[in-house]
């Protein structure tokens, strides 16, 4: 397992010992040691996975970073959220994904209709296995627990990801008054039920 450490809240340090990580293309800001960067055409998902990503509009490029040394990763001075996984699966917005261990499996899955309103893809990215995942957050990320008695509602633009046994629904908060009058601007929400953890950013994606 590669070693992820936050050098500051906005800079990620990854220590590699003849290992590989997948990172968002162009997110490397500095490195030392013997490190090689390669654009990953298939994104570690095989030909079919890469095709799904293209079709699904989850358009972001990954690169493989391999070798021995230290790599510093950052993206637009956004804050970085570290999520260590122990044989778990995280669902994450691809626009928030920054880096993950190469040993983990990533995939593109259909996420429902929310893409239609928030301008994000209809598909979302999953990362599964044991290792570290780094995500970017506009402002310090907030971790919110979902329990069977306390469902959680989230603005699709503030959503980063979730893990656990959670069901995600797309809800319209629209009644006849909103249809006639002006929209309240909060008409589309993601509803999370079940047991698990939801990651959000205190900002609406631009």
């Amino acid at each position, binding site marked *: 397992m590669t070693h992820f450490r936050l050098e500051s809240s906005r800079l990620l340090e990854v220590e590699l010992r003849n290992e590989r990580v997948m990172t968002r293309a162009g997110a490397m800001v500095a490195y030392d040691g013997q490190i090689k960067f390669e654009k990953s055409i298939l994104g570690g998902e095989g030909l079919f996975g890469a095709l799904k990503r293209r079709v699904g509009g989850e358009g972001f490029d990954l690169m493989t970073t391999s070798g021995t040394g230290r790599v510093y990763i950052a993206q637009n001075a956004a804050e970085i959220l570290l999520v260590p996984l122990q044989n778990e699966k995280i669902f994450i917005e691809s626009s928030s994904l920054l880096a993950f261990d190469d040993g983990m499996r990533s995939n593109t899955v259909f996420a429902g209709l929310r893409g239609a309103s928030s301008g994000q893809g209809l598909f979302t990215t999953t990362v599964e296995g044991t290792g570290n995942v780094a995500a970017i957050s506009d402002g310090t990320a907030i971790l919110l627990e979902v329990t069977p008695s306390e469902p959680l509602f989230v*603005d699709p633009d503030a959503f980063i990801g979730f893990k656990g046994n959670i069901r995600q629904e797309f809800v319209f908060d629209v009644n006849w008054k909103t249809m006639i*009058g*002006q929209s309240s601007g909060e008409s589309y929400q993601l509803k999370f039920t079940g047991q698990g953890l939801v990651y959000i950013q*205190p900002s609406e994606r631009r």
Partner: protein
Amino acid sequence: MIYNAQNLPVNGNINSYSFCMDVTGEMFIQKGKMVAYYGALKFESLSAGAYDVLVKESFNSPLYMKNFVVVTGRGKLILGDRGNHIASYDLEDGNLTVRSTNVLGFEPSLICQESTVPGYLTLLGTGKFLASSNGAVHFLEPPVRVDEDALLGWADMPSPSYRYDYSYMRGMSGMIRSFVSNRSSGEEKQLDFTGQGTILIQSSETGLVGSTNLETIVSQTSSLQQHELQQLSTHLQGLMQNR
């Protein structure tokens, strides 16, 4: 730190960029600033008609009606504003004027009115309100001159007036500037505060996205005469070509 409905702060900051509000009744919030909530909350536009009495009593600003919504119900509401800092303020029989884009929410015990300064809202009375800023907020005492882009608002004091720095405008460099571009740097024009009270500024000159006074300008064009509208149109076209 993992939060749930029980351990979220009660009317307090989760971090500098987000605020958790305990909603038990009604509350005005700026449209689109909800990032998440627990509980049973409803968001409705002010123009929907269901809150006519509330709007009449507390929201005396038809110009900004489409920028705000009413939250009702019971629950924990988390607000965020594009990664800007958020702070809550308690007003006690006060009079506070804030840039309209920075007003994130307020209790209906406050009365919201349009300030005579375009793009600003005045909150009157007693109650809690939330405001965002780019960087932390600083408080100043008059007399002081403030850059317009850094100004968040002012409390319990007279409205400011503009102060122009003639030497900055007239000097050699000012001449060159006026040839090179017709956009001024903004440093020659400041807001002049006098009297007693408190001034709130943010530690950045980056205004928040979205013009603060477009609504005001548009609403005022209705009083213009035909030939004045013609002049305005020519002026706007000139501006568009130069940008």
